[in-house]
């Protein structure tokens, strides 16, 4: 049984988490000059999100899939993404086991690393604020 019932639910939590942080001063400062534009290609349910840190915007669906300015593309299932954003997925191991695949600049992708802890916290808070402890337990 997948964590998210449909694309809308995946976007409502993972996407909203990014929407809530991209404009925050700490993220703006941390990504300044990085050119970091990450496209998240998730399956089960299928969704595509484009996180444009310099532009401080999040887009979805066809707009995200057809964007030409992504510096990094990450591919994984929604279930693994959910675990990852809760800080429960061992990323290097997941890469080795091909649960996560990446296209683009490794250096740019790794610039995400210092941001992951605040993102994990933001994701958990968003789920708690929405009363979705059931999803936290599935992480």
């Amino acid at each position, binding site marked *: 049984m997948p964590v998210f019932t449909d694309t809308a639910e995946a976007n409502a939590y993972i996407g909203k988490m990014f929407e809530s942080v991209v404009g925050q001063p700490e993220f703006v400062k941390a990504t300044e000059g990085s050119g970091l534009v990450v496209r998240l290609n998730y399956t089960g349910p299928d969704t595509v999100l484009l996180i444009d840190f310099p532009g401080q915007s999040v887009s979805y669906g066809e707009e995200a899939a057809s964007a030409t300015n992504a510096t990094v593309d990450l591919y994984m299932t929604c279930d693994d993404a959910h675990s990852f954003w809760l800080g429960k997925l*061992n*990323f*290097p*191991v*997941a*890469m*080795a*086991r*091909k649960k996560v695949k990446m296209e683009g*600049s*490794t*250096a*740019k992708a*790794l*610039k995400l*690393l210092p941001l992951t802890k605040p993102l994990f916290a933001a994701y958990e808070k968003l789920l708690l604020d929405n009363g979705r402890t059931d999803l936290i337990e599935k992480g």
Partner: protein
Amino acid sequence: MRAAVLREIGSVAIEEIDRPVPKMGEVLVKLAATGICHTDKSMVSGGIPAAVPLVLGHEGAGVVEAVGPGVDSVGVGDHVVLSIVVSCGACYQCGLGNLSICEVGSLMSPGGLMLDGTTRLTKGDEELFSLLGQSSLAEYAVVSARSAVPIRKDIPMTVASLLACGAGTGYGAAVRRAPVSLGSSVVVVGCGGVGLAAIMGARVRGATTIVAVDPNPVARELAQKVGATHAFDPTKDRVLREVNTLTKRGADFGFDAVGTKGTVELAFQCVRPGGDVVAIGIEDATNEVEIDLYSLLMQKRVTGTFAGSLIPQIDIPAALELFVDGRLPLDALVSETYRLEDVPRLLDPEFTLPPGRAVVSFEGVA
């Protein structure tokens, strides 16, 4: 057995974990010596992502304690160097002879896994991950038999261990990756263990002008001791002017053994049109390189190497023969020896490793 374990960024501890058991195609090695590499430090500091909990160490040498099924390349009692070249021998890259970038090894090793996608390291019910297929800052290590290179028993283990990673990488950069030849001019940026080995390799290949660049006076002195013909301090000397004066047109080869902002660029600016630059160090995996397009049109080339692009079973014994013959002074790299208990301090991000190589020596072996 005791092992140096990284559980979170910045924190290393010596822990008692289970002694690993070799599977098909693997060997169990009792460690005698393990060099401390800057990659260990970068993983501890978070500059390079690590699969945690991780048993550190990837520059080991020791004695074969046991072999798994199907191993006939080494036997119990053999002295071996544990190369960081982890190769399957069957993939596209291995078929091309590019063992150091094996499609299986280069995927599994950074993920802390053995070639079969699992780990041998445990602490009770807990799985721990391995570093570059060996985790040799521990009393014992299980490695792929293809990475266990048998060596002469009269070679000091502290010297042999250096060829597993750092010295092998620098040496291989000059003898395998770049076509350094008789009369070549070479610039080496950064004179830690890797850079010093690149200098030695360039000298073995017949380079006659070898310029060492390092801000540390002790490192520059070591560089000249192992073969550099000139040494400059980039914080005080005009390196480009000096290199151009010495070579008339720029060096034939540039090696960057540092991997921080601007160091590949410095090596790139030091080489002549048509010259080669090889990146052999990386301090932080988020580092990017900026070079000018016009110089590329002038046929300068930039490349890199993992593990010196060595063919371990051929190049490591050959390098040790050169050492015995007095032509590859690897022993000059061993600056300090330590005990396993010292590892947390050595890998503390605030601790500065000495020039050359710090090597952990294990008691009671060889």
